[in-house]
């Protein structure tokens, strides 16, 4: 019976990590449903971006208040995780505060003291975050796309953090030996008087319970990630690594179009000749995107990375002037549709069965897509380099090239370009008239 806690702990750890591995596999599979795009170039620049933007949070702090609070929670999260390592070793081998013996009382006290201070700072930051989301009437937290689950998701994450931090501090406050040693109990020494009337045995039970709930809570949280916007804590790293490195104004040139245009412009090409390379039943490549599988894997990774902060939407000229377009909603819709496709595959033995739905119209409407000015404000704002604009353009491409469904005025503009080489109906012969006008 002596080993029962160790066995239970190993079991909990195995189940927690096992489920997490399953989630990660699903995540990979879904992201890989996207089209191939080469992001193997410029490895050093990519690494630099990842270190600067994801690890260094450089784009977060452009908005000082929320940026600063986020850095606290982020640093707290990473550093307090050293404690989790100790918990795991203690749990598996039945030791107690194993690091104390390894690094010595003084250094150990310094470490735990740091964790305690961070824990209290995280608690304060999380309370401010909660207030901003629920009371402060900040416009980007009131958008229609946040109604329902997204709002609950955001609050749940905050509650999780409150509980985890409180458990950590309670655990330290009720650890008699730790309090008696008096090194590193910077915050918990003020909490321990709460437990003054308790017997040694009860204190031990509370300490053990806090310890167990803390680690179990972490395992639950780890598995909650996949179902939450909170995935960004992991995906921010690959997302910033694989992000577009070209100038933001550069839109990709569709190679499938280049092939056809070259053929059209080649005077030697025989338009009636059948290509010898293509087989009979080849489906012609679709232009643009109407569903998530038409997007690239980077765009799908973007969708899973988005944590719905809404900085994009709060800087979008269309959204600021009351149009339906919200870049954040573009990302949320892409993720939700991708999840739907993934679940469909899970239910049908790994193969997608047509559900009569797609990203276009069922999630994102043409009205949203046509409101975009392609100004790149959303791309610039995103703290983790998500690119909503590329999805908007790919979907416009589908509307125009596959469905001829551009707004009437844009069709006129394009007809003018075709006929007289200008978006307006002026003769090309008048191109130089400005020379003689004053």
């Amino acid at each position, binding site marked *: 019976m002596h080993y029962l806690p160790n066995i239970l702990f190993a079991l909990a750890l195995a189940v927690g990590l096992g489920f997490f591995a399953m989630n990660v596999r699903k995540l990979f599979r879904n992201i890989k449903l996207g089209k191939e795009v080469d992001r193997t170039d410029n490895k050093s620049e990519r690494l630099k971006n990842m270190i600067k933007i994801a690890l260094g949070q450089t784009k977060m702090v452009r908005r000082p208040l929320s940026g600063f609070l986020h850095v606290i929670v982020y640093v707290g999260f990473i550093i307090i995780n050293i404690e989790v390592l100790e918990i795991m070793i203690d749990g598996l081998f039945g030791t107690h505060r194993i690091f104390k013996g390894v690094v010595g009382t003084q250094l150990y006290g310094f470490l735990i003291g740091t964790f305690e201070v961070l824990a209290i700072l995280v608690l304060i930051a999380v309370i401010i975050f909660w207030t901003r989301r629920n009371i402060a009437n900040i416009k980007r937290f009131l958008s229609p796309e946040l109604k329902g689950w997204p709002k609950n998701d955001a609050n749940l994450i905050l509650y999780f953090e409150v509980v985890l931090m409180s458990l950590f501090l309670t655990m330290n406050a009720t650890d008699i030996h730790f309090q008696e040693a008096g090194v590193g109990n910077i915050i918990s020494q003020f909490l321990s008087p709460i437990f003054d009337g308790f017997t040694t045995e009860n204190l031990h039970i509370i300490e053990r319970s806090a310890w167990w709930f803390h680690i179990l809570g972490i395992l639950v949280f780890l598995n909650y990630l996949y179902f939450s916007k909170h995935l960004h804590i992991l995906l921010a790293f690959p997302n910033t690594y694989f992000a577009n490195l070209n100038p933001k104004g550069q839109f990709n040139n569709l190679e499938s179009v280049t092939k056809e245009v070259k053929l059209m412009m080649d005077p030697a090409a025989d338009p009636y000749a059948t290509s010898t390379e293509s087989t009979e039943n080849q489906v012609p490549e679709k232009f643009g995107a109407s569903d998530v599988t038409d997007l690239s894997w980077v765009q799908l990774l973007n969708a899973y990375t988005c944590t719905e902060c809404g900085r994009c939407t709060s*800087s979008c000229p269309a959204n600021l*002037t009351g149009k*339906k377009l919200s870049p954040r909603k573009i990302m949320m819709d892409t993720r939700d549709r991708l999840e739907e496709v993934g679940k469909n595959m899970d239910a049908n033995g790994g193969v997608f069965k047509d559900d009569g739905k797609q990203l276009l119209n069922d999630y994102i409407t043409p009205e949203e897509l046509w409101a975009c*000015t392609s*100004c790149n404000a959303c791309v610039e704002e995103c703290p983790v380099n998500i690119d909503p604009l590329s999805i908007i353009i790919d979907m416009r491409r*589908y509307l125009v090239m596959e469905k001829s469904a551009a707004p009437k005025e844009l069709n006129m*503009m394009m007809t003018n370009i075709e006929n007289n080489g200008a978006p307006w109906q002026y003769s090309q012969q008048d191109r130089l008239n400005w020379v003689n006008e004053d």
Partner: protein
Amino acid sequence: MIVTTMAEMMAQGKQPEVLFWVGAAGSYDDKAKKITRAFVKILQQANVNFAVLGTEESSTGDAAKRAGNEFLFQMQAMMNIEILNAYEVKTIVTCDPHSFNTFKNEYPSLGGKYQVFHHTQFIQKLIAENRLKIDETTLKGKRLTFHDPCYLGRANNEYESPRDLIRRLGVNLTEMKRHKSTALCCGAGGAQMFKDAEKGDKEVNVLRTEDALETNPQIIATGCPYCKTMMTDGVKFKVKESEIVVKDIAELIAEANHL
């Protein structure tokens, strides 16, 4: 005004130092034509050996591409590249950030590789080479704010060249609260120039004009013909056209130098 075309240059067996890509707005739109003429005057004052394509110029295809019509864009691009390469064009300057962007970033992989300048960059270069001076007395002390064109700023990270020229004009520059990388679009990009806006509670150009009005300017400067149109319309909407002028930096330099 005498402007040479590439065809005329070729007939004389000459090659210009730079091709001035006028663009559709610069060729046809009344407000933009003023930018075109101002820039030509600057080029001539600096004795730049330049040429235009004239009637051989066609749409870059930029607006079609932003609207999603990749076919039309690539058709236009390849036709333009054929002409530009036939004339052995090496350097292009344009007053339109949209043309600038597509030439610089999207033409190369289709076979059109040129050194591309936005006109503010080119004027900066002329000053650095001691070929041009800006008279800083004419507009001295005027209150000015600058609206960053998205396709120059965020799209290509060029915030400095227009500001460098503004400083040389001797004016008092006050930045809007949203400027440089956080600048608000004028509302014309992404082919919006050619269509009505979707339903909303305000026009984008009005919101941007309000940003500008907060700085209490006498001049709103831009570096893009479409921005100029949008901001001019915004100022009119606010009934401020008697107090505030909207001008391209090229127009301001031409004015400063009494061209």
